């Protein structure tokens, strides 16, 4: 109990908790769940973008997208490492993903249907991710906070690139501008859902905030995102697909329409439109790569045996 009080005091004082420090089991469990879920999201998130890598319409865009997807893989790696400092293994986490025990962001279960989707993902999805992640640079668990510093820097870069891709489209041919509008139409609502369920239906939020695992509520972050994004859409000349969206003069923010939470919960249950494709692709990559990992292990063992001899 004294340990717990000391822990809570350190957290309240915005000190970092490090791997070898004492921590409550619930704190550890929550972090493992959150960090591994974040790692899985980075890895699964490579797939919807990878879907257009082979079809990027210019060499420059192809290189930018390659570098972006690579960054995401890199984020996945540091996040797995951060989670490992909490005493879980990468294999266990991957197994939890493949068996459906672990979740990843519902956003990656939506399909990428045209080239503008790559821009919309950068602008909206990375944009929402940044809103979620900026506060996590000061989250209470040290390795996670430090990973977030690097992740956020790269995500901001991706967001600008996504916006730039869309700018080229809206300034292009009418059918290019139509692609951009179509992408916004499809990604807007799923992006708003990325902040999670509304606060009145988010049972773990209070404790996570007390423990500085989260630092702002879902609805606060969602509002920030809407307020930041609406002017950007206007600059692109694209219409946000929400007839109820309007500026609230008193509140100093945008009011927006009702979110289809039944769709969100279906996606959380793994029933999003491309959920089966995503998890099938990840499992196939893992299973078909087993012989490679086995071979590398076997070779390493032989080398070590030789070196020891």
């Amino acid at each position, binding site marked *: 109990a004294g340990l717990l009080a000391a822990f809570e005091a350190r957290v309240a004082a915005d000190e970092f908790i490090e791997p070898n420090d004492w921590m409550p089991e619930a704190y550890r469990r929550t972090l493992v769940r959150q960090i591994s879920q974040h790692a899985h999201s980075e*890895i699964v998130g490579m797939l919807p973008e990878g879907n257009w890598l*082979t079809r990027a319409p210019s060499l420059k865009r192809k290189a930018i997208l*390659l570098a972006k*997807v690579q960054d995401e893989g890199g984020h996945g790696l540091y996040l*797995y490492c951060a989670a490992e400092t909490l005493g879980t293994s990468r294999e266990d986490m991957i197994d939890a993903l493949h068996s459906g025990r672990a979740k990843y962001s519902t956003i990656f279960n939506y399909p990428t249907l045209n080239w503008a989707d790559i821009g919309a993902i950068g602008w909206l999805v990375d944009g929402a991710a940044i809103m979620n992640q900026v506060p996590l640079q000061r989250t209470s668990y040290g390795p996670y906070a430090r990973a977030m510093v690097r992740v956020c820097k790269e995500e901001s870069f991706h967001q600008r690139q996504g916006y730039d891709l869309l700018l*080229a489209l809206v300034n292009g041919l009418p059918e290019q501008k139509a692609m951009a509008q179509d992408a916004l139409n499809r990604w807007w609502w799923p992006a708003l859902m990325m902040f999670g369920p509304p606060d009145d239906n988010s049972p773990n939020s209070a404790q996570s905030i007390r423990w500085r695992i989260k630092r702002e509520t879902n609805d606060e972050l969602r509002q920030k995102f809407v307020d930041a994004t609406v002017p950007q859409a206007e600059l692109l000349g694209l219409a946000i697909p929400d007839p109820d969206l309007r500026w609230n003069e008193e509140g100093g923010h945008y009011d927006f329409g009702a979110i289809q939470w039944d769709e969100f919960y279906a996606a959380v249950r793994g029933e999003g439109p491309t959920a089966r494709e995503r998890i099938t692709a990840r499992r196939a990559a893992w299973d078909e790569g087993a*012989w*490679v990992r086995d071979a590398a292990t076997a070779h390493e063992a*032989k080398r070590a045996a030789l070196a020891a001899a």
Partner: protein
Amino acid sequence: MDAPLFGVLTQLGDDSLILGQRLCEWCGHAPTIEVDLSLSNLALDLIGQATLLLDYAGVVEGAGRDADRLAFHRSAEAFRNCLLAEQPNGDFAQTIVRHFFYATYAAALFEELVHSSDRRLSEIAAKAAKELRYHAEYAADWVVRLGDGTEESNARMRDALAWHWRFVDDLFLDDADWVACAERGLVPLRQALRPAFGDIVATVLGRAGLDVPGKVWPIMGGRSGRHSEHLSTLLAIMQVLPRAHPQAAW
């Protein structure tokens, strides 16, 4: 137009482009995250090289085509990449063997091209040579790991060697454009690089516990636009947007 130089630059640029495109297909599907990142890295180098080489080819041609125009608006028979580069990814062993052969050849070639009498080509080569040296080492490490790994990985490597060995003569072909440029000191003859290639292959395969494949009937044609069936489907995907919207900028 300096047709032989244009030919040489498209041969070089198309090799990078097509192999880079193939590696893009791995994204999100590799055996480990680390390998996924490495393959993206290799692809990124190759796409960068392709951009420089094809942009220069466009300048030499003088018809207003840039790298994108050359990449996205030519049909298969106008591509002059080697057959090796367009082979399907197959399993990871196939990808590694393809890359090992290509990068071993290309690293040596671009190291020579640094001394090209053509200044722009020599500058491109300086950057590419460093990248390709790393590619060759990365691929060789995996050749050893997989050859020496398990029975299964060894068997897969043998299949992969048998598949790709048939394209090595095509890889080293000096066609008329190439010979003309070699005579002007712009490029080395590819055939001159072949003995060193053979030595490296023999050494690495030896360390991997794999035999150098015996003599086979060579499959030729890449440099003159006679490709395998695999190129046209690769291009159908790669070129789909610029072909559907020929007037668009991206």
